[in-house]
């Protein structure tokens, strides 16, 4: 099986998301996939349900090699369920909800029109569960419908999305999650149509970083979730043995002031550099020799992938299936139990001490991470399209 078995002249592929240009990982992913699939001769159509506000809009290149449609001109009103007597008496809200539902049906009809016009073998990929609410109203007969959840099982189930995934994706031909481990969790939670598909790498350098500078790098938003406070705790344990090393933290965020205070309290001002956010991640990584990540939660952490693609050995908390999927502990990186900063410190200590270990893990990661190259991942998508027709 390979991409050659695809329907002659390529398939019609619809990538349906909440919006086409909302700032964030899913949009980046959608357009990356759209480009890759177009490159394989498929007719891609990127569909957004609603537009987003200016300040959270991503700038897209002008000449996209595929079509792009947004169903709504303005964002539809929020769905609300009206309960009890009070809900029943709330006439204005009931009218709003009724008109919302009518609008949804009308927009779903637009989707149906697009789907009907597609050639046999067409595929609908729904990247976010909110968008699925429209797709499930549309007529998808004859098309393969693939739902996606771009976050860990745990993250889904901490929000209302867990319930909505179960509700709206249960009839999809396939529901794709980020890792096999997340897929197993969804299956054990009662979804029988689940499989997994990793995200493709955004870049793949030809050679690993030189790994000569005495610098540990970490990249991520300065937020509670990314655990920079825990990284500082671990750094405080590890750095006394390595006074000539520096920790560079790339990123900005709401917690910056708190984190800087924490850093000062720990007496780390000498050895920690706050770099702010950067647009040249690869460049930043190439100036370091070790990568550290202390996140409390992750889906399929792209920064970890990037670090490995850059050839840096990583030390990270094993906080999600996505991390375990990317890093094989001891082979191409070192994992510590979530929250165990002593263990993370010991890993950083080992990597700073042992140059040979850095090279071994860094080179291995550089090789292993190729399984997420855009070529490989696109092949897997095309195999899936073919499989769902059997």
């Amino acid at each position: 099986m390979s991409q050659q078995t695809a329907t002659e002249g390529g398939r019609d592929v619809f990538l349906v998301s909440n919006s086409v240009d909302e700032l964030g990982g899913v949009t980046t992913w959608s357009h990356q996939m759209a480009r890759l699939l177009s490159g394989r001769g498929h007719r891609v159509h990127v569909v957004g349900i609603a537009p987003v506000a200016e300040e959270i809009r991503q700038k897209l290149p002008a000449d996209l090699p595929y079509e792009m449609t947004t169903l709504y001109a303005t964002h539809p009103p929020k769905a609300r369920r009206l309960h009890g007597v009070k809900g029943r008496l709330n006439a204005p809200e009931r009218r709003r909800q009724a008109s919302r539902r009518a609008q949804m049906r009308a927009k779903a009809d637009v989707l149906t029109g697009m789907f009907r016009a597609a050639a046999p073998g067409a595929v609908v990929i729904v990247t976010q569960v909110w968008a699925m609410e429209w797709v499930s109203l549309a007529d998808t007969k004859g098309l393969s419908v693939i739902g996606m959840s771009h976050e860990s099982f745990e993250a889904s189930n901490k929000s209302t999305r867990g319930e909505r995934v179960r509700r709206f994706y249960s009839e999809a031909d396939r529901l794709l999650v980020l890792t096999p481990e997340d897929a197993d969790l969804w299956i054990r939670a009662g979804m029988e149509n689940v499989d997994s598909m990793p995200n493709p790498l955004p870049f793949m350098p030809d050679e690993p970083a030189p790994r000569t500078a005495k610098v540990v790098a970490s990249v991520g938003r300065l937020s509670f979730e990314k655990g920079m406070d825990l990284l500082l705790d671990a750094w405080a344990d590890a750095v006394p043995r390595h006074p000539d090393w520096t920790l560079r933290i790339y990123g900005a965020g709401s917690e910056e002031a708190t984190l800087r205070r924490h850093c000062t309290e720990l007496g780390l001002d000498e050895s920690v550099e706050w770099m702010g956010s950067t647009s040249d991640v690869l460049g930043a990584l190439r100036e370091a020799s070790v990568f550290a990540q202390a996140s409390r939660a992750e889906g399929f952490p792209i920064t970890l992938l990037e670090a490995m693609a850059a050839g840096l050995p990583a030390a990270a908390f094993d906080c999600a299936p996505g991390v375990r999927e990317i890093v094989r502990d001891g082979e191409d990186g070192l994992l510590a139990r979530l929250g165990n900063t002593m263990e993370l410190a010991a890993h950083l200590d080992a990597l700073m001490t042992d140059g040979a270990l850095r090279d071994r893990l860094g080179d291995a990661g550089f090789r292993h991470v190729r399984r997420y190259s855009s070529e490989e991942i696109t092949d897997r998508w095309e195999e899936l399209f073919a499989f769902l027709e059997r």
Partner: protein
Amino acid sequence: MPDVSVVVIVYNDAERLPTAVQSVLDQTLRGVEVVIVDDCSKDRSYEVAQELAAAHPERVRAFRLPENSGGCGAPRNHGIRQTAGRYVMFLDSDDVLERNACRNMLAAAERTGADLVSGMCVRVHLDNRWNKTTEWYPWIYARTRTLDSITEYPDLLVYDTLSTNKCYRREFLLEQGLEFPVGIHYEDLLFSAQAYVAARRITLIPNHVYFWNVVEKASALSISNRRHEIANFVHRMEIHRRVDELLAAKGHTAIKSAKDAKFLKHDLVLHLRDLPLLGDAYRQEFARLANGYLAGIDPAAYENVTHLQAICAYLLGKEDWDNLLPAADAMTNKGRLCSPLAERDGRVYWCARHIDDPADDEGRRILDVTDQGYHTAPLSSLALGNRLTSYEDDGRGTVTLAGRIVNPLGRIKAETPLKATLEFRARRQIGVRSFTFPVTTVRHAGDTIEWSTTADVASTVRPLGIIDAVWDVRLKLTAGGDRMTTRVSVGGVDLESAARLRVRPRLTRLVSDRFEPEMTKKGNLSYVLTAEGRAAVRTQALLNNAMHGKAAGVVKRSLRRALKARRNLGSGEQKVKLYHEVFSKLPVKKGTVVFESHMGKQYSDSPKAIYEEMVRQGAPFEAIWSYAGGKPTGFPKEATLVRRWSWPYLRALAQAEYWVDNQGFPLALAKRPGTTYIQTWHGSALKRMGFHEPRTKAQGKAGQDRFQAAVDRFDHFLIRSEHDVRTLAKGFRLRDEVLLRTGYPRNDALVEAHRAEVQSGERVRGPLAAELGIDPDKKVLLYAPTFRANADGTVEGFEFPFDVEEFADRLGDRFTLLVRTHYLNSVSLPPSVAGRVVDVSRYHDITPLLALADGLITDYSSVMFDYAVLDRPMLFFAYDYEKYATDIRGTYFDLKEKAPGPVVATADELMQAVGAFDEADAKYAEARQRFLSEFGEYDRGDAARQIVEKFFTRSGK
């Protein structure tokens, strides 16, 4: 070529066949064909199969065996030969496939190249009112997993012996010549074993793939029904023998051992359960078959089974029915003590037989139950075996019951007065539904207690009817001050000839009018409401229909909701709500202090010291002590006692002027501003605490905020040294003004004891030494280890890290060892060490024990910091220091560096160090002083007085 062929076998099941076939046709994978094989049915099965084939000519084919084979093997084998697909699955006509089963199986097979893919089977209980489902060995299918050989996961072969939840590569079946055995039951066991062993790759997927519809006869099988089981047992043993042969031929010894362990754990239990009911002839035949098989079992398998499973197998081998039947009862009813036990040379054995033969070491090893702690556990905590010896009725409504209760090791003394009541109790508790009868005779009789009574069940027990159909019988025994509840097991008593008792249900006699004695699945006596009168039989039928109707659904749902609401009222969530919304709105009661020590488990520690100082000074306060568990023992009678989490407890906390506690009042309870919280804490820290703990660091924002809110409740926090400021105060993120540098009130007594000793030059042992019966000529050592927890915070059980009997033998003539486990743990000592090793865990307060001990052995317990006050020798048995310090929890300093005494790592080193106890004393004097000044500088002996004067004897109070 289809991707998957599903072989559907059918025998006299025309009605359900179409449903099974439809479940294949409805698969999400389209390339699936059905091969129906009829085992020469007598009904229309084959016609139906042909009709299905005609309706789906491309997808369904029908075949028929020329004569009935009587099993599943022959039709499945025939089916395999007819299949055309690349993969083959099996389906029985009364079951169905999950809709995505074929797609998921195929995806897994193609992804991994497996010969065999197996998914989870789900049992659907058709006779259950809610159509209950149970997953079949879900732990095997917890995650996707690919094996390159069955040797990687023997449990798969051992436990999942079904052939139907699997997808086989057709070429693989043909190449390997895999077929089902014909003419024998349990054909799946052999087929699946062969397939597992032959497969070069096996993939397991967690998906539900197969729905196995089962109808369990709820009522127990009658004896006549059980008799034919010997035939089944013959078949079962034969299949086991063939599987073993296969494993032996392939050299799979590890799998054989795992399989043997399962045989001891499961198969044997299944059959032993029935033994009490069956006659000698059956038993002998059973023993012959089973022992023949047991003889071939790997001795190593015994190491993977529970002590009772090993005991049962051993006693069966000896054909010792008298001791086996109680053992089987104990195995079926977990935790039940069904044998009177026996003691020899300081060890406790399951029974008195087989342990006196000097040659039979194996018997003694297997029958030794000392570690179960039956000899030390409080009587009231034991579930004593209680076997029915006779059952008579007058044919109407009165029964006369007699039975025997086990009296283990004669622990219920002959002179102890006995009382008992017999209780009939509805299994479904709607309101409290129970009726009790006095037991007329209860008396001591050797190693048992005999009882008998006559109960007029008909006129006393008044079930509601319908909703409380099952009633259990329990006997409550009072022996002196101990109260024990026992279930009555039926044993060998024949209930089949017993009459059904007439009862008058409160709702209506139209539904059920008889009470039928019955043996539960676990062999206990119960009664079931049934219908006998014609009217009752008719309404029962009507009702059964009605119970499944739409209207009944509404009623049932609301009933369930009502029951849930009632349960919720007592739930923690509701209590917390009421605490905040009602109790906390009531005025603060000036002068009330709520005390708690270690979450109510003890009357001890600094809260106790403060309380006693208040009493001594006559402070005008109302003291309320919190206790955990059933009833408070050892708490002061003068104080008001409230059970932790009870309504009075919550109310007392909500209205208290002061909270005094050493660990933490429930985190969920907010403290109102009018209440002052004095947190005494319970020890200086070696291991990382609070926000410094990995477990806390791993928490989400919400969890951390909750924790922060809980520690923010502390208005005052007692500390013993600046070390506490650097560790505890930072770990809990406490503001400096919260800290009270008073030292620990609990240590006042130790400071005083040390002063007295220095002044008088002699150490005076108090009344505690006499109470414990300590030899004045022996030195007293206290062993006080801390608990160990896993990374997720669950507490591991306590096990001696050294051989306590060896300790007693080597050092017992010079030392008395007091053992005090952490309050989260418990210990049971063998009788052999009596007088030389003493369990003092039940003493709430450790302080008097510290004062008594001439030396302390600990590992990482904070007791080391307190004991330092006494300036006596300490020994650190840190056998797992690396793991403790770096792996799970982390420490604030290196114990090895600062320990004021020898740090040893092995049991042998420990005993040598104890042997050289006196020499080490002087050597560490300086280190002890350093240790005390670093960790206990504020312990000056007046902590309780300072606290009481600061808070409780202010002028105007």
